[in-house]
């Protein structure tokens, strides 16, 4: 029941940060982005025709310039690597959730992706109003606070979107029933609070872990997608399961990864980021991509059986 890990870490960015003049950095970033605009991004995905291709994004709905810049990178990635869906790991809108906020913090930055037919499937974080978001068509929650779905295509995958800030017993029972009933090879839960994280601000959530990890193990979950801590982290496999924290889609807490936890296989707490993934048969590939368009983590692993 162990993951046969074949991870090749392209680049591990955790440590170094030299404070420089912010205006100069912005100028340099803009110049670099302009220079890179026409160049393809250095993705390392197989991009097979019959794969399930998807993206993961979390803690994004700020309406900030950084969110928009990352969204522009997502569009560039999509042009090279046509993912059909995005799983949202929560904190989809920060602050007020008036109609204009849905536009500014979601519809406008991701308009190019929405126009391309990409579907976003939300889970709820602690900054999200369940009533506003579960009924929002573009979040595809079908009026529910937690739900599962099987994406189109040939791959044997089912996603489970949970609401981890209010994990009542009936939700846990529902989740187990769904896992039990699913005959998909890949069962992928995603939610906001990370069972494992090296965040100094939040870190691992032992309550969520104790409620859900036994089910992950019992039903052969191989990968879990979360957010909440505002950085990217891929953990070393925990009891055979790889946990991702993808919580820097707009927010960012610089220097917040505590490397002393011993959990981190790769991380980035220096820039906004998101992740893409590809499933084909028993294999899952991933790239983590920064707002600068750098692929700072990549690899693949085989599902638990």
């Amino acid at each position, binding site marked *: 029941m162990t993951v046969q890990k074949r991870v090749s870490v392209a680049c591990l960015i955790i440590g170094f940060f030299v404070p420089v003049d912010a205006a100069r950095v912005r100028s340099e970033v803009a110049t670099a982005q302009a220079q890179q605009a026409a160049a393809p991004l250095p993705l390392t995905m197989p991009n097979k025709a019959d794969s399930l291709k998807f993206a993961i994004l979390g803690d994004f709905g700020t309406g900030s310039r950084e969110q928009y810049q990352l969204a522009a990178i997502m569009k560039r990635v999509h042009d090279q690597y046509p993912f059909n869906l995005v799983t949202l790991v929560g904190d989809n809108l920060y*602050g*007020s*959730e*008036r*109609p204009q*906020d*849905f*536009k500014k913090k979601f519809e406008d930055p991701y308009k190019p992706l929405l126009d391309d037919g990409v579907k976003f499937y939300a889970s709820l*974080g*602690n*900054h999200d*109003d*369940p*009533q*506003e978001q579960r*009924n*929002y*068509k573009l979040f595809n929650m*079908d*009026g529910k606070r937690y739900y599962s779905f099987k994406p189109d295509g040939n791959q044997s995958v089912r996603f489970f979107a949970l609401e*981890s*800030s*209010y*994990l*009542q*017993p009936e939700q*846990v029972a529902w989740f187990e029933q769904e896992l039990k009933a699913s005959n998909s090879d890949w069962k992928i839960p995603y939610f906001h*609070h990370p069972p494992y994280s090296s965040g100094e601000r*939040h870190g691992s*959530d*032992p*309550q*969520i872990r*104790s*409620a859900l990890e036994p089910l992950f193990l019992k039903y052969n979950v191989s990968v879990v997608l979360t957010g909440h801590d505002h950085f990217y982290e891929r953990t070393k496999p925990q009891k055979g399961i790889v946990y991702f924290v993808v919580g820097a889609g707009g927010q960012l807490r610089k220097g917040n990864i505590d490397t002393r936890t011993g959990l981190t296989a790769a991380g980035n707490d220096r820039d906004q980021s998101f992740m893409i993934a590809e499933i084909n048969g028993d294999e899952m590939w991933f790239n983590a991509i920064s707002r600068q368009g750098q692929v700072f983590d990549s690899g693949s692993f085989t599902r638990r059986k």
Partner: protein
Amino acid sequence: MAGRCRLIVMAMGVSLSLMSCACSRSSSPPVDQAKAAVPGTGTSTPPAQPVNEDAKALAAFLDRVNQYVLVHQKLENTLPKLSKESTPQQVDAHQRALSKLIQDARKDAKQAEIFTPESQVVIKKLIAKIFSGPDGAGLKASVMDENPGVPNLKVNDRYPDEIPVSTIPPQLLEGLPKLPEEMEYRFVGDDLILMDTHAHIIADFIPNTFTK
């Protein structure tokens, strides 16, 4: 009568974990049975089975919750129904219209009308018991994560848009009386609020929940 019995049975389930605690602690505050009575349910008919005072207090709380939800549902049914295809404008308009209707219908509502005084004592005791367990410190830390509190909390107020909701750990939810779909528990600072999730308003709250 049948509904009342159901409530008491539900409350008994929650209070089972407290019973040993209540029985072993002679200092547990006595609950006045008359005060725990709920309007419209009758107090002269004896319950179907013996229950402890904590269970009665929780049954009274759940009865008040259900009375609130009946009002909520009646008012919500006067509004256009939301669909899975709703726009943010429609969802927002629905939420604010519902909150206005409930606020008007409960304009004289005061703190402790749903969380009855007796149930407050029991719920605080339940929470204290959970927080005093081996995982108590972690549970409390989860609740207080990104939970700065709000000064001058009031019944019927809209839950502040700028403040994230507190996480309620599953271990805590297991120990509290189960609520209907329209309602949920959240903490604002150390005040336990009963939140109307459709209307996004505070239906009632228990102040200083962590204080005996």
